[in-house]
């Protein structure tokens, strides 16, 4: 899966480093949204059936497939809890705190 990379933003130091007319390279993000989270989803691989509903329903698209199973990108998970709510296998639980 192509996923956006988190790349720190280096402030331009010279005017020529400012993009021309609001056009710039895409494919990366500069800010993690982890700070928005008050509760954090935790996925138990042993209970996961691989139905992919959480992956489909996540409004931020932070659940992704890896060799080891489904993973959650905690840099961008806002903790909305939809994945935990929708998981029929009850493999995802919301833990208090930003983890």
């Amino acid at each position, binding site marked *: 899966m192509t996923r956006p990379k988190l790349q720190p*933003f*280096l*402030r*331009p*130091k*010279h*005017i*020529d*480093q*400012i993009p021309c*007319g*609001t056009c710039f390279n895409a494919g990366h993000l500069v800010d993690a949204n982890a700070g928005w989270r008050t509760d954090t989803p935790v996925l138990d691989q042993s209970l996961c059936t691989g139905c992919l509903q959480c992956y489909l329903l996540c409004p931020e698209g932070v659940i992704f497939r890896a060799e080891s199973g489904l993973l959650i990108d905690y840099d961008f998970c806002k903790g909305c809890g939809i994945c935990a709510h929708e998981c029929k296998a009850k493999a995802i639980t919301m833990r208090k705190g930003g983890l």
Partner: protein
Amino acid sequence: MTHAHKAFASGNEAVAMGVRLARPHVIAAYPITPQTTVVERLAEMVEDGSLRCEYLHVESEHSALSAAMGASAVGARTFTATSSQGLLYMVECLHYASGGRFPIVMMNANRALALPWNIYNDQRDSLSQLDSGWIQIYVEDAQEALDMIIQAYAIAEHPRVLTPVMVNLDGFVLTHTYELVDVPSQQSVDEFLPPFQTSNKMDLDAPTNMGFTATPADYMEFKYQQHRAMVDAAEVIVNTDRAFGTNFGRNYGGLVDSYRSGDAEFILLTLGSVTGTARVVVDQLRAEGHRVGLVKIRYMRPFPARELAALTRRAKAVGVLEKNISPGYEGTVFTNVNSALAQAGSSPLVLNFVAGLGGRDIAKADIARMFEQLAAGAENPPDERVIFVTLQVAVAPEALVRYADEGL
């Protein structure tokens, strides 16, 4: 019915309260940040019955001002409000309204223009429309916002003026900031602001043609008449402000307001809310023995050319602080000021401080630095008179070599 009282209100809420007191017949509105709470509050007032008027939801700003014109054309007192992109969307209507001599009052929340997309405060939206034929006011705080809505109708509807008025509030800084305001009673406003009466309207008893064409044989005379009305408005503005002071105990100095500028060597000219911050800096520098002062430009149209020339006559250097730039040249306020001073034969050094674009904060230290630059400039006039304040990047060519290795 409003009784005189104090309120802790935002600039937008103050505008809405002022509009209610002015008793408009028709409000046509389209929401846009950071004006939205004005039109929301007015809608609530219509719903709760405290404001009795026709409230039109329209689908764009172009329609909002068109609807206001239509209402004005039947003799109704009207109000609308907008900001930045919305103001520019209605630009052809601005000229229609002023050419048609419809005394509409519109609040504009000063906000930056795309691109880049930015919803924060600067003044390029209204300053780019100085030629639209509208009287333009820039208020410093929520109290002035409320008071100027009332004064705006008195000025706009005056038979020698009959010109629409734009009341500008700095977006967020004034629109969304809560402060203490004195809300006058409905009765006192009714005594100050008589019902709108005009012959410039459609009337079944005295039919008129309106909104007609003028050929090259006649068009220029209309424009001269419009221009004269705006010039004559200056006297009406001063008299209205004086009368407001008599009725309500508050007045604002007319076209301009000066603060400690009488014996000042270095004077800063300001528009809108930044005037407040500048007052604090003037006090700080005066306490240190510097002879500094400021003049708040309240009206950009009609332009207070004589007043500004007179108030800056003895200064060594004058700074024009504006949240605006006309790309490729200079700030528009600077252009207007230079013309006024040149025509008056006045010649202090004038510097243009371009600051606050896109909502960038203007700190007290930034303003203090401007006074330092005026002092330095008075001794050694710089070649470059247009100074962008608080840029976060180097702009000199040599600096690029140093930063070339540090990519984004």
